[in-house]
């Protein structure tokens, strides 16, 4: 348990330190753009809203698709 808590705190501190070096949101999103995590099309409205997109301007993640749901035995799951 002690080891687990130590690891948890360590990860949190590392992440915090990592982000502390990127305090400028422009730089942060430019970095994401450079890494291909966001697209230029997504970067443009960020820039327009000073890198704080209102909730209504964010893209909903509803672009998933399912096929026909079928019943199965436990040994047959995909």
């Amino acid at each position, binding site marked *: 348990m002690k080891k687990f808590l130590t690891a948890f705190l360590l990860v949190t501190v590392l992440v915090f330190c990592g982000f502390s070096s990127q305090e400028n949101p422009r730089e942060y999103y430019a970095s994401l753009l450079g890494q291909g995590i966001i697209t230029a099309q997504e970067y443009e409205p960020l820039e327009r809203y000073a890198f704080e997109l209102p909730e209504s301007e964010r893209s909903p*993640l509803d672009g*998933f698709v399912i096929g026909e749901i079928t019943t199965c035995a436990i040994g047959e799951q*995909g």
Partner: protein
Amino acid sequence: MTGRAGRLRRLLAASLAVNMFLLTVSAGAALGGVAVTVQDNYQADYGVTIPFTRSPRTTDYTFSLYEGGSAAGIPVVSAKVEMTAAQEDVYLPLAYDITGPQSYTLKIEARPLADRIGTDTAAAREFSFTTKPTCGCAAGTAGAFYRGSGSAADPFYVGSQQQLAHVGAHSAANIYQDRDIALSGNWTPIGSQSAPFMGTYNGGGHRITGLNISGDNHGGLFGYINQATIQRLGIETTGVISGTEAVGSFSGVANNSNLISCYAVAQVRSTATSGWPVLGGLIGSNTACLIEDSYFAGSLQCTDGSVNVRWSGGLCGIARELSTVRRTWNIVEYSIGSASLGPNRRMVGGVAGDVSSGSGSECRPGQLGASNNYWSASGSGGPTYAVANSANDMNYDSGVNTGCTQISSFSSLPAGFDPSVWEMGTVTVPTLSGGSKTVAAPVLKVFQS
């Protein structure tokens, strides 16, 4: 929202995401492009498969299944789904009703990844569906099976009277009974001479109660089986199992079949008024079959009309072509009338009436492969030997007792009975007078849990 607050939120989200990722991986959940972590320890050994194509912008989903046509209330099952593959089947355990169609709603919630929390927003969609028959029959078919494919590894599941009646529509399939079934009304035996049951029926240590049969030639839960196996099934009925040709609790006629770890507590009756009726506690007429670790407790009655021969036996009326019977017992009250062709043609055996082989003009002496069988008889017209006729000579009683022992009662497991299969218990035996008596007797452990 200020820039500082936004950064703090991103920081917190990223920190949590990294830690959750580490927790998930430490649980060993990520395999094959999709990791499903079912919540609240929900378990079922069957469920639903959902072909899923994820959004390219997130891998983080929750799938929840709700009973009915909307995602209201508490879901039956909910799971976190971490999907790295673009397209994959997502399996969710779900103990849906196996006895008929059932409607569910699947709610899928998608969450943004940590790096995209400022550009994406969570979304949820709902999909309603109804379970369909898995046996190939059209939706709405009475008694259709809703679980299994009928293979040995994935048998059709049976849980209702209608589904039991539907077994005959899949006569070569593997069947599993997953609960006790109480029958009502007059039962039509499964399988006929032209379309015998040829599959396997595993009772799963469950019982069928309320079996009543009249008006059929071959009376029994099954009418006619061929190259079939029935196992781990109990029949308990206060009704009467009757027929005019071959009658037995499990099957009127059985050829090249197995009856293993089964029992019947019943009254079996021939209603033939002429001809050559066959009557057995478990099976009426049996050719080259195996009966193992099984028992019958009840009555056998064949008194109607003027018939040529009355073949009757505690387990089988006829057991031809070297049938095998081992580790069985029966306690039977008999009421067997005379045969019109002579006193020796009333062939009543404590285990089997007649074991001679062949048929018609090809009849020849035969034998029963018997070991560790025990029989007890009371009433009128009952047996003198375990096997009444083995010589195919109807002019004298050629009875044998090899491998069979007449007993009056059980005080402990008899010789040859495996204590991992059997244990001493009590059995309530129906009597011809309409009452019952409770006796100490070996019972099968598979039915005791």
